[in-house]
């Protein structure tokens, strides 16, 4: 295992502009010592997967508050699968009902954080669950 800093892509898919959460998480992870790349708003799943592979990240975090999570998470997982990178962890946050969380985890999303999660919860999860790839 290398001791390089973990690289995390924080991505904001979908058409909405709710980037408060994404930016807070990006800052909190950066302040906690992670290397963070933030995509900005209005990204398609294709753009996100492309950025993740180009930047050679160790994980992708998606922030979704538009209700489109059941379309966008699976689309990112599917594109990763097509590119042969099934081991790149995808996690996320946003307004996601419990039954959808269960379904998305079954499909391969590693963790989902919902409103009220503290940045410390997320940083702790990232420290304990993510590893440098390759």
């Amino acid at each position, binding site marked *: 295992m290398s001791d390089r800093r973990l690289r995390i892509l924080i991505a904001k898919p979908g*058409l909405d502009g709710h980037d408060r959460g994404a930016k807070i998480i990006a*800052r909190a992870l950066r302040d906690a010592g992670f290397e963070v790349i933030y995509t900005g708003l209005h990204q398609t799943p294709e753009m996100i997967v492309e950025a993740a592979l180009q930047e050679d990240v160790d994980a992708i975090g998606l922030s979704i508050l538009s*209700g489109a999570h059941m379309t966008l998470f699976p689309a990112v997982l599917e594109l990763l699968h097509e590119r042969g990178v099934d081991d790149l962890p995808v996690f996320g946050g946003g307004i996601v009902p419990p039954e959808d969380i269960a379904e998305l985890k079954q499909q391969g999303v590693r963790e989902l954080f919902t409103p*009220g999660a503290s940045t410390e919860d997320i940083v702790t999860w990232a420290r304990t669950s993510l590893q440098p790839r390759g």
Partner: protein
Amino acid sequence: MKSAQTAAQPAPPASPAEPERRFTTVSDLEIEPVYTPAHLDPFRYDERLGAPGEYPYTRGSYPSMYRGKLWTMRQFAGFGTPEDTNARFRFLRAQGQAALSTAFDMPTLMGYDADHPRARGEVGREGVAVSSLADMEALFADIPLDRVSTSMTVNCSASILLAMYFALAERRGIPLDRLGGTIQNDMLKEFIAQKEWICPPEPAMRIVVDMIEFCTTHAPRWHAVSISGYHIREAGSTAAQELAFTLADGIGYVQAAVERGLDVDDFAARLSFFFNVHNDLLEEVAKFRAARRMWATIMRERFGARQARSYILRTHAQTAGCSLTAQQPLNNVVRVAIQALAAVLGGANSLHTNSMDEVLALPTEAAVLTALRTQQIIAEESGVINTADPLGGSYAIESLTDRLEREAFAYIDRIDRMGGIIRAIELGFPQQEIADAAYHYQRQLDRGEKIVVGVNKYATADAAPLETLRVSNDVERRQVARVRERKQARDSAVVGQRLAAVRSAAREGRNLMPPIIAAVHEECTVGEISDIFREVFGVYRDPAWI
């Protein structure tokens, strides 16, 4: 029976080594233990307050305030197909709500038709899907457009949606000068906070001014811009930042319209505002009072408006969505009641109360009803409507009003020195200030310096979840099929001509509203007209500052 255990620990006994507890507003303004006349510097009643309905309007926009006319209860609604939202509108009207407020879905808001690949998964989710005039017709079926006040929350595609509303009125034989309502159409705050855009700030501003100009002439009862602090606050700003950036945006619009050649007194009274109302009751009451005084000063001193009606800041308010919690969601009813009370004590002219379940999903009919009843209880039972500005003259309120005004004017001065609000946005100034404030607040929450009941204090094990509204995937399939069908049924030669007329007006700087209205009459769509904006004006990209 033992109830669920609270996860919170009892506070440790205060020790001298620990920092003294700070007493601050939700925006982190330090508050004095008590306010006295010494905090009013000095108390010049006539100059700084005045009677309600008189300059500088600190005490209210109208002399009789809520005795004369209650605030407008306006619940924002929209989801699924136009028929779904039409049913919700009719329900709200039957429950005593006189005004409508329309939420559109993300594809509509961003200028995509339901059948565009980027609309996948988003059709009808966060609002109603409207791609063409036929959808608008279904949305307002059996609603008398000349007898309701309609608000439409839409920004970068606002010109197209307003054109559809006007075209629908024309089809029904209603003259545009009889239409009353508001379109949000505040692009500056989009770049600052809500971040739904098509083209860059300069052309976006030109379209807004086209709409102000068109409405001033043809639809004089229509509010062509609702200058919005709501989203600025939701993005994490403080109260002072909300006040400052909202009024700075207002200055930007007035300046641009005056530069277009409009007389400030011809359009100023049709500018409306939209503020957030958060948990901190005293700070919020002060904010509304400061907003009215600041705007009156700006209009008279800075723009030389001469008519009293140009000085008056009229505002809609909405309770703070960002204050609601997914944990113990019934607590949200109480938060909303406190916030709504603050809006009324602050003299808001129109109010939306959020539903307890909005942090989880779009609200159910039952939750919306409780939210509306909250306003009705304040209006009919609490007694606060009996007298104008009941907290006016309180040392604490007056001092806070002065303080928010000072802080906000200091921001406006900085923005002026940068060269105005568009330049400040290009530099990322308001965006960064808000992101810093949002992060600061989150860190305070994480350290327990700020409390959210049920989240970082008095937390309980998961309670029974609320029943939430789900929008079925069927909505998207049906809407996509409808849009495709209608596109096929049109006369493509006429459609091409109408779109070409929009394109040439865009290129040549002529007012865009007449050709857009003509285009939507022929079922040209939100996506097609937005594509012309993208082609002629270019597409704005998120600078993605962290």
